[in-house]
């Protein structure tokens, strides 16, 4: 009999009941909540007169709607100028209080983007099942956890029963061997993978990222990669546990200690796919072949190496693809054949659950150091993913590098990733963004998003257009 994949192991260990009709009850270890997708779930509980099944499984934080300017944050919830956002943030506080759920409130030291704080606080651990009413929950799979997004009805379901009604997905292995070139990051790897798979290529699969490149990759990088599995249609992205995982988890606030730590480690060391595990699909890449990426269109699969040119829809065989590409070029105001490096940038956003961890800020700061934001760039937002990341970055004086370069150093939150607060693009503006979605209007009505890595975003900020960050690095060593 073939061995088991990591996904198989996690599924089996959490299976409460397999029903005859193919559905299953899966036990959930960690449930993360935020202000946008939880209010209706709490309301549902109240209407039905139900109580949360297991309070200590839940952790909440406010991230999507919170303002990111220091002045607006200083005044607390009452000072949030957007009334509807204020009510939503307040509602989360009220619900957590009423039900006794642990919450990192807007200005608490543990606050941040839900997918940044989970791993950072040790609230998400290897071997867990993790769900959240947010599609980027796949991020936590980087720890060797089974993590995915759910809808609000499911949030209510998990609150009430600690279980999810689920169906087993298929297994896909995305293998990247070799080594990455200098200036090529986790973000470039995952964008290249999505370009190949397409936005629906992973639908119905749990993707495991394997191979040398991921084995060498930091936890921050693995989180960036797993975060974007959903952009290839897969609800789940994961990486097997190894020494890098254990080193990362050790000493975190909610991680086990002492004898419990030893027991946990013994268990976690089994959390990888068996050598003879069989996958339903395997896709292979070579690390050396991956270059810094820039998205040109309105879907994360519309992405190319930075030295490429905007593709010509006329050359596309598939009529649906052709139609999608030409619509995207209209929206983005780009022409077939135009060099990506000729696209001028109006704003730059470095942040989001994809790229707002300390390593991301270090990479951006390395490029920004000693340089100035280009004259044509109106604004560069640097938004740390959590209060802890912010404190760490300030301890390393990265904030000063950004400020000296003419960039804005903000308070933690989702910010311009989805523009629910005041941080947004104006119509027609091009943005170099380290976030995960370049959908029409995602960062502001009429805004034009180009997805890139933090180093590539910083390079665009200081030159005013997209540029291969390796060129800036070369000029440093020359």
């Amino acid at each position, binding site marked *: 009999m073939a061995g088991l994949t990591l996904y198989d192991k996690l599924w089996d260990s959490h299976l409460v009941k397999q029903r005859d009709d193919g559905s299953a009850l899966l036990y959930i270890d960690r449930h993360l909540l935020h202000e946008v997708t939880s209010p209706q779930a709490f309301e549902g509980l109240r209407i*039905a007169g139900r109580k949360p099944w297991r309070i200590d499984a839940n952790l909440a934080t406010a991230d999507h709607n919170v303002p990111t300017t220091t002045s607006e944050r200083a005044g607390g919830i009452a000072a949030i100028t957007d009334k509807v956002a204020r009510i939503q943030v307040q509602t989360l506080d009220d619900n957590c209080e009423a039900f006794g759920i642990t919450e990192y409130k807007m200005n608490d030291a543990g606050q941040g983007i839900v997918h940044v704080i989970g791993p950072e606080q040790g609230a998400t651990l290897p071997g867990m099942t993790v769900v959240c009413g947010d599609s980027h929950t796949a991020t936590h799979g980087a720890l060797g956890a089974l993590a995915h997004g759910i809808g609000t009805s499911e949030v209510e379901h998990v609150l009430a029963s600690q279980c999810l009604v689920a169906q087993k997905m298929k297994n896909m292995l995305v293998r990247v061997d070799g080594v990455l070139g200098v200036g090529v990051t986790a973000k470039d790897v995952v964008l290249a993978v999505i370009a190949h798979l397409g936005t629906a290529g992973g639908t119905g699969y749990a993707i495991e990222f394997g191979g040398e490149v991921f084995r060498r990759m930091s936890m921050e990088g693995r989180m960036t990669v797993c975060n974007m599995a959903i952009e290839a249609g897969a609800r789940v992205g994961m990486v097997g546990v190894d020494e890098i995982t254990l080193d990362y988890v050790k000493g975190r606030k909610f991680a086990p200690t002492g004898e419990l730590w030893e027991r946990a480690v013994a268990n976690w060391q089994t959390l990888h796919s068996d050598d003879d595990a069989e996958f339903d699909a395997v896709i292979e890449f070579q690390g050396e072949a991956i270059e810094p990426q820039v998205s040109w269109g309105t879907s994360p699969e519309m992405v190319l190496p930075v030295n490429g040119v905007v593709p010509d829809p006329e050359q596309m065989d598939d009529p649906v693809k052709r139609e999608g590409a030409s619509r995207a070029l209209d929206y983005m105001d780009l022409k077939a054949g135009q060099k990506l490096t000729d696209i001028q940038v109006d704003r730059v956003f470095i942040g989001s659950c994809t790229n707002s961890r300390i390593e991301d800020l270090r990479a951006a700061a390395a490029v920004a150091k000693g340089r100035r934001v280009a004259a044509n760039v109106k604004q560069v937002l640097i938004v740390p993913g959590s209060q802890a990341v912010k404190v760490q970055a300030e301890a390393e004086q990265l904030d000063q590098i950004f400020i000296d370069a003419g960039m804005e150093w903000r308070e933690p939150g989702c910010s311009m990733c989805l523009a629910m607060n005041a941080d947004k693009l104006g119509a027609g503006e091009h943005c170099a963004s380290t976030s995960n*979605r370049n959908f029409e209007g995602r960062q502001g009505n009429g805004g034009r998003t180009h997805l890139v890595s933090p180093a590539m975003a910083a390079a665009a900020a200081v030159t005013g257009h997209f540029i291969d960050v390796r060129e800036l690095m070369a000029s440093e060593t020359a």
Partner: protein
Amino acid sequence: MKSFKQHSGLVAPMDRANVDTDMIIPKQFLKSIKRSGFGPNLFDELRYLDEGFPDQDNSQRPLNRDFPLNQPRFKGASILLARENFGCGSSREHAPWALDDYGFRVVIASSFADIFYNNCFKNGLLPIVLSKDIIDSLFIALEANEGYELLVDLQQQSVNLPDSSSISFEIDAFYKQCLLDGVDEIGLTLQDGGQIRAFEQQWRKNSPWLFDAL
């Protein structure tokens, strides 16, 4: 959840692939703490020419006349015909809430994104997957015939065309039963409460570090 057995209604087209949930209901409307009232802002950026805000009088806004839902021939549509990877992107359940609030009961597409697909069932909205070829032919028929209606029968798993031919579709047995009965899914799960407790006790023994940390 709302039950769904049979539905007959007017079809409207959404003729593009990869319609994401940001497009179905833009983020500014997610600030609501309610489950209803999203219908007027369904496809907001495509439907109106200006930028929409929550709590606005939508009847005063300039309409994009090219958008099918604004055309008289599709007024009152309750079946949406779409293309591949419908509902991709964000997990927001506000997307099916908006479709439902607008009056849609069925979405037909050649494929759906997983989370959106799940979310539909929780709200009595039936997502139907048909092959690309059939979808193509439905778009052509829809274009050619004003007042194009379909009859969807969940029990029979069939979509019945005006020419009285019928197309069958696949659906997961569990979801089908839930929709037909309009079951309270949480109530159903809680019937297995004893089994969940037993699992939990064993799990706590095996992996005590997963408990009581927060």
